[in-house]
């Protein structure tokens, strides 16, 4: 049983973008703050800190989640991936990032790290989403600049160039339940 008392700063270890890292934090430290302030990776952005805007979305064990709604200590021992993991070491953008650039899917870029991580997870599960499914995933993010059309276009472009029918398939039909029941 893991126990940390309030105001106690304990060592929290996790893998960030493939590197095993650790830093001291209190139980109340949010994962978003831990990544940015304690571990120094500022690619992840923080907008609202209550789960609404999606800017802080990261992958925790491969699953897209709000880092502002996760305590750092909850991510202990987990594999955390942020926007910094996407480009190649030489800075070459990955296909999703390149499509964002090509389709004007960002302006100020504040919302972009979270949106990229959401679609990194979603496209791995459902590599050929419909435009409705893309919009459904995008509804978990707020962008004050683009009007979203460029983002949808960018994701569509990546989806259409993905190899036919791969993916884990576990949630591939997720957004298809939409609307009324059977």
């Amino acid at each position, binding site marked *: 049983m893991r126990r940390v008392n309030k105001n106690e700063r304990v060592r929290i270890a996790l893998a960030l973008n493939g590197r095993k890292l650790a830093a001291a934090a209190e139980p109340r430290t949010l994962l978003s703050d831990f990544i940015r302030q304690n571990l120094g990776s500022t690619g992840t952005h923080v907008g609202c800190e209550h789960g609404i805007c999606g800017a802080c979305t990261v992958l925790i064990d491969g699953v897209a989640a709000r880092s502002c*709604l996760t305590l750092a*200590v909850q991510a202990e021992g987990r594999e955390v991936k942020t926007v910094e993991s996407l480009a190649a070491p030489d800075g070459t953008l990955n296909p999703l990032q390149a499509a964002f650039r090509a389709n004007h899917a960002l302006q100020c870029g504040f919302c972009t790290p979270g949106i990229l991580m959401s679609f990194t997870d979603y496209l791995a599960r459902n590599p050929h989403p419909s435009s409705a499914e893309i919009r459904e995933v995008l*509804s*978990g993010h707020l962008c004050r600049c683009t009007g979203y059309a460029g983002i949808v276009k960018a994701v569509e472009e990546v989806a259409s160039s993905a190899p036919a029918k791969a993916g884990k398939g576990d*949630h591939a039909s997720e*957004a298809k339940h939409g609307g009324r029941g059977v």
Partner: protein
Amino acid sequence: MKPRPFDYVRPDTAEEAVALLADYGDEARILAGGQSLIPMLNLRLIDPAVLIDISRIAGLDVIADRGNFIEIGAAVTQNALMGWPDLKLKLPLLAAALPFVGHFQTRNKGTVCGSVAHADPSSEIPLTLAVCGGAVVLRGKRGERVLAADAFQQDMLTTAREPDELIAAVRFPVIEGKGVAFDEVARRHGDFAIIAVAAIADGRGEVTLGVGGMAGRPMLRSIVGDAAGAIAVWAGELEGYEDLHASAALRRDLLRNLGPRVVAEAIRCAA
């Protein structure tokens, strides 16, 4: 927008979690997915002394088919349930409701039981549980008890759970050979609903209709015959309430409009 300090405990078994609850009682909050709890902590709306994190307890992460009902453990996330292959076949109403719950990103963490525990009056999972006639499994040091959904959720954010009890699972009855429908009105997709409506038609002319967002908890009505008339009367009786998002009159209006459509859809599906 940062939580106040609290102790954090991560038990390895449900027994340890129950023992901790017995020690701390209402000083403690259970943390599972955190999608309702952590916003409240960040906004400092609540101030628990200790958080008991049950998200890594292996035995609570189970969806069990028990024949007449499906038992969903306390650590099962909403997206894990959406990915459960038998969902549409056995729990069609839940299959229809889940896409309305938050967003893809929050469903990845948010749990089914957590939504029931939070007991927001307009939230989709408690409404579905009530309309299906489901139940909540509560585990405390004194043993286990099973409460009908109707007895569990008492009012806005208020349930019959004792401070030393863990919601170990929820039970959704298997629905077969019936028609179901679910719909809601929200300002934006993924927001809490202003009004959410769920219906089960038995195929012999009777429909169980449930509404969230009209009272402190989901309300149920059995409808036979003229649905529009019956729902109009019901909307008047329920009155509704006013908050930031809608007036009571708008809620009544939405129920009068959405209710008959959802009932008709359920009847169509049953046929």
